[in-house]
């Protein structure tokens, strides 16, 4: 194999063979960071990494705000102490039993929605193709609502949401003609499937008594109020597996942004990659819906913020997850405090704040 032939050949590149050339000293390409430990070398884009750091800092600050602000105002020190069970009983109760679990649920759902959105967008090669748009949220919701109204109490929402999400995905992909399908065909099929499931949910709610319908209400708008502990644990597990897996797939995802021909030509197992990404995206969405209901807007807004801050370098998976978590925590905080004592579900806040913001971002960068 002419492994090193290309740059040894004098006709191919004289620049490299001259020892005085600065090119003979290895350096990181522009806009990247390069680490080496022996045989291991990593090359990452700088902008997404900086974006992730900034978003992490913002997430920490908004988390502290979320712990301190509310109907029972705490100062920062009290809130921090209360996390570890130190301080007044009331403070510890408010933080440990109410705010901290809610905060974690918000971060987890936001990150899962946004990561799933980023994965699906890359898979479909279309920034509108988020699980929410192609009906996976609605599928998960319909199944969860069916379990609430059909059985009086929600039995294992994660399992119900997952089966709903899988059914919706199977329908969308089946109707659009398989996993290899790109672009609008699959979007349109997904929107149709989503509308179908949405209508199904409404129909179920219209046919049951008002009390049961009330029980199911948080499922339909998206709220962090109705979360159950079990679902949060499942979401945590999904994120602990899903985020590293997504980051591991990151290089392949980056290549998948090209056409299939190019990606295949570079040796990427395109079909297998797509299948893995699709499943990952569906499972993450289902786990998030099981906790917070359909807050699909996060999946659009989170990756959009991440891409903007990352200057469109690579596929910003980590930054997307952090941006999603940040947006979710802030939206829930706003919903809890702005119209206090009335609480606005996070799904409604996301729709009210998220839509104009999304429009602004989409319109200001016409690339």
């Amino acid at each position, binding site marked *: 194999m002419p492994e090193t*032939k290309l*740059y040894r050949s004098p006709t191919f*590149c004289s620049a490299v063979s001259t020892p005085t050339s600065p090119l003979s000293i290895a*350096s990181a390409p*522009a806009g990247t960071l390069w680490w080496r430990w022996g045989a291991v*070398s990593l090359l990452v884009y700088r902008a997404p990494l900086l974006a992730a750091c900034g978003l992490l800092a913002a997430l920490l600050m908004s988390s502290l705000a979320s712990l301190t602000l509310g109907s029972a105002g705490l100062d920062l020190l009290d809130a921090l102490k209360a996390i570890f069970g130190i301080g007044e009983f009331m403070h510890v109760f408010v933080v440990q039993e109410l705010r901290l679990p809610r905060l974690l649920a918000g971060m987890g759902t936001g990150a899962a929605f946004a990561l799933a959105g980023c994965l699906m967008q890359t898979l479909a090669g279309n920034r509108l193709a988020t699980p929410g748009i192609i009906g996976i949220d609605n599928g998960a919701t319909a199944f969860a609502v069916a379990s609430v109204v059909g059985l009086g109490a929600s039995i294992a929402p994660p399992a119900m949401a997952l089966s709903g999400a899988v059914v919706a995905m199977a329908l969308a992909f089946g109707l659009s003609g398989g996993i290899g399908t790109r672009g609008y065909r699959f979007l349109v099929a997904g929107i149709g499937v989503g509308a179908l499931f949405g209508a199904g949910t409404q129909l179920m709610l219209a046919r049951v008594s008002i009390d049961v319908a009330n029980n199911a209400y948080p499922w339909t708008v998206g709220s962090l109020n109705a979360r159950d502990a079990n679902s949060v644990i499942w979401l945590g597990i999904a994120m602990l597996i899903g985020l590293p897996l997504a980051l591991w797939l990151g290089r392949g995802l980056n290549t998948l942004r090209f056409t299939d021909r*190019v990606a*295949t030509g570079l040796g990427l197992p395109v079909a297998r990659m797509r299948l893995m990404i699709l499943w990952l995206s569906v499972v993450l969405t289902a786990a998030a819906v099981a906790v917070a209901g359909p807050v699909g807007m996060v999946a659009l807004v989170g990756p959009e913020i991440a891409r903007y801050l990352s200057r469109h*370098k690579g596929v910003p998976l980590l930054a997307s997850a952090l941006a999603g978590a940040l947006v979710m925590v802030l939206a829930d905080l706003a919903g809890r405090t702005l119209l206090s004592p009335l609480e606005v579900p996070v799904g409604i806040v996301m729709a009210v704040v998220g839509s104009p913001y999304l429009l602004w971002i989409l319109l200001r960068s016409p690339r």
Partner: protein
Amino acid sequence: MSVDAKQYSPAQQDCASHLSLAPTLKTDALTLGYGVRKQRVKVIDGLTLGLPDGKVTAIVGPNGCGKSTLLAGLARLQLPESGSVLLEGKDIQHLKRRDVAQRIALLPQETHSPEGVTVHELVRFGRQPHQGALSQWSQQDQSVVTAAMVAADIESLSERELSSMSGGQRQRAWIAMALAQQTPLLLLDEPTSALDLGHQIEVFELIQRLAHVEDKTIVMVVHDLASACRYADHLVAMHAGRVIAEGPPAEVVTPALVRQLYGVECRLIPDPDTGTPLLIGVRRTHERLSGSAT
């Protein structure tokens, strides 16, 4: 007729024989098609073809004759209906994707690129078959990427985004990416389609150099028969999914072949500089003229 020219010159056989007698890349009764079962269209029908090592092979033919499909099949982008593509004697479908990507680079015709990608980033993607999850960048990668950009004359624009460049510049960036893959085989789908005359010549001369100096095997789909005659060592003329002539351009290209391929009349004279056939006086055939008049 011209089919008789299907014998490799002695020089070619010598070149191939230091590894094995058979060419590195060949097809065996290859049939390619697209569409679902009932409306299945066979684009390539039972094609057996060897691509001479270390030579520039040009595939020519009218629109829709299956040139690009053949190239996709050779690059393992399309599953054969029957028959096979053999790389080093092994069915390409049974080889690992990565192994194929280390041996065959493809320059596709359509050059869509993700937003925000710069030339340097694009060329870096060409290194991917040689990299791993934990070996993402090396001194050699850098040298090869730079050399590829120099060879394709795009180095001065390395930090520019592709979306902000002209078609010709973009084309050269993609050529650099294919070069960075460092493969012994290069498949190029109309490598000069978006280029002006100066850059066309530059790319063709680069292609010749890669084959003759670096011993790479080049297969290119070319629209322009004149360029194919001028720069290819080996010509494959395709019509309706079949090879109708194959061999060195000077032996293969005849007025009869040109008529059969494109439905035009012409005269051929040897190029005073290179001796390769030149097409002059190209006009539509009489049959066509009378056919359209009645």
